[in-house]
């Protein structure tokens, strides 16, 4: 790196400009990574927190919008419970509602209907757990938005009044809306559009959105066999994320932007080092004439690129973390160390590949070009 370090210093203004571009791309990568993680959390953290292996929807239900279309009955829940590889199966209700808090503030909620005491019942950090029929356990993020334990929440159009009795310790959201857990019987009435004192069809009182299935420890869940036995269409928990409103579109859009950014960073670094190598062609010919091996020059060039990429990426990631801390409260933004490290590492690796594609030209430099008559 004798030559690499000295050239970096000598041409520092050029390398600073190049490094600046890489650093700005790194900032964007960190922000996109945070936004991506934030959107994922906003979209499906409520599902992620459920100790569920798979969801079984009504037979033939398409994944897109399955949580809003599917209706399963008690027989299907029982069929899943009877499976040998299933530790537990519970009816699970999911419904997006508009509501108002006691102070008249409009709020949107994702009502998760679960049986109190079942494996689906949420762990509560503030207040008490599910139990009373009009009790509501909300996501911690609902408290951050102003809701308080003891507040009354009124479901729009139905006028059903529920009381916030507890809150989870972590973010539980679904489709960018705070999750509120309610006892399954209450959820069924709201889902049927009935008031608490209304008469409803008897079958409504056994319905749910899906069967939440938990596999036995160490057992592999045979979804196909379970579906055949219960007359359902099941998907794994991770696959069910695709049923969250907008989840697939958001994640694929962000992934596409990230892929383009990675490609751009590799091309930008490659273009810079192409020009830089062409600029150094005569100098490289002199070095080759002096007996410098191709390996020596290639290693020197790659070391130069690596130094620039590592330093610029580090600066960019740190700046990105700073910017992320500033915007964190106002947008779905979650910085996770593994994704930030992965983004930085990918930027360096792809940049190095771009640089290598340019630096490889060094191998073709003819030492004859060092002689005046051959220039």
């Amino acid at each position, binding site marked *: 790196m*004798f030559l690499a370090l000295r050239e970096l210093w000598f041409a520092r203004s050029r390398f600073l400009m190049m490094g600046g571009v890489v650093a700005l791309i790194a900032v964007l990568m960190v922000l996109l990574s945070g936004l991506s993680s934030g959107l994922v959390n906003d979209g499906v953290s409520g599902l992620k927190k459920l100790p569920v292996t798979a969801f079984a929807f009504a037979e033939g239900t398409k994944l897109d919008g399955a949580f809003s279309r599917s209706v399963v009955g008690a027989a299907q829940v029982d069929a899943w419970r009877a499976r040998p590889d299933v530790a537990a199966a519970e009816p699970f209700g999911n419904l997006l509602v508009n509501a108002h808090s006691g102070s008249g503030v409009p709020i949107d909620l994702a009502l998760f209907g679960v049986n109190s005491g079942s494996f689906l019942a949420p762990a509560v950090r503030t207040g008490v757990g599910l139990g009373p029929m009009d009790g509501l356990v909300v996501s911690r993020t609902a408290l951050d938005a102003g809701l308080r334990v003891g507040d009354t929440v009124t479901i729009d159009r139905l006028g059903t009044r529920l009381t916030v009795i507890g809150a989870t310790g972590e973010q539980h959201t679904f489709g960018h809306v705070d999750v509120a857990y309610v006892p399954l019987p209450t959820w069924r009435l709201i889902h049927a559009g009935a008031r608490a004192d209304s008469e409803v069809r008897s079958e409504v009182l056994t319905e749910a959105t899906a069967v939440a299935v938990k596999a036995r420890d160490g057992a592999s869940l045979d979804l196909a066999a379970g579906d055949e036995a219960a007359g359902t269409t099941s998907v794994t928990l991770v696959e069910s994320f695709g049923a969250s409103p907008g989840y697939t579109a958001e994640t694929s859009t962000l992934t596409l932007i990230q892929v383009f950014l990675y490609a751009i960073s590799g091309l930008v670094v490659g273009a810079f080092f192409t020009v830089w190598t062409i600029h150094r062609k005569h100098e490289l010919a002199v070095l080759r004439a002096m*007996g*410098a*091996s191709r390996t020596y020059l290639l290693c020197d060039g790659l070391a130069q690129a690596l130094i620039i990429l590592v330093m610029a990426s580090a600066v960019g990631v740190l700046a990105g973390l700073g910017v992320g801390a500033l915007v964190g409260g106002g947008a779905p933004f979650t910085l996770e160390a593994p994704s930030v490290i992965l983004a930085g590492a990918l930027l360096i690796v792809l940049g190095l590949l771009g640089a290598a594609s340019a630096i490889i030209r060094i191998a073709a430099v003819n030492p004859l070009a060092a*002689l005046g*008559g051959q220039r």
Partner: protein
Amino acid sequence: MNRATTAPRTTRTGLCLTGVTLRLGDGDGLITALDSVNLTVAPGELVAVVGPSGAGKSSLLAVAGGLTTPDEGTVTVDGDTMSTMKPAARAAYRRDHIGFVFQSGNLIPALTAIDQLRLVNHIGRRSDAPDPQQLLAAVDMADKAHRRPHQLSGGERQRVGIARALMSRPSLLLVDEPTAALDRTRSHEVVQLLARETKRSAVATVMVTHDTDVLEHCDRVLEMVDGQLPD
């Protein structure tokens, strides 16, 4: 990194070109750049090769320095037949046994004068390399050791270029138009320095030049015409 070194020289016998022919181009464009050239340069001898442009002077340096291989004939340095070596071995041989002085010094812009010399040591990883500071002092450049090429005059750049070429304690020194772009006084100084270092280092030196004013410092002067040298 390739750190292979060639065998250390034991006895210096200088440069010997025997029946060297080099053809360039192909088809109708085929030209004979060197035509059955025979040349022997002893250690401590400075030989000047003069001739018009296109006579084959640079081709002679290229073949003698192992930058290209002749179509016919042999090139030996201190008894080692370089013309049959593979490219990587020739590069290693150049690094360890041959010094080049290029037009205008052809120094690396990013390096100071002292680093130009250290680079040679870094490329070759020699244990017996001379002290760069002493070598710069030998060419009267000790006081400008930390200047970069753009901060040096043409003559000073050539002095650094000569010191750099001597860093590997070469057996053969190949000098390409060292006085190009230098005034008369500086030209004499540079060639005098080359003659002095040739004797002091016991190196066989071949200098290609258009400048007939400086030939008085050379031990022999050969005129190259149409790729041929007088035997």
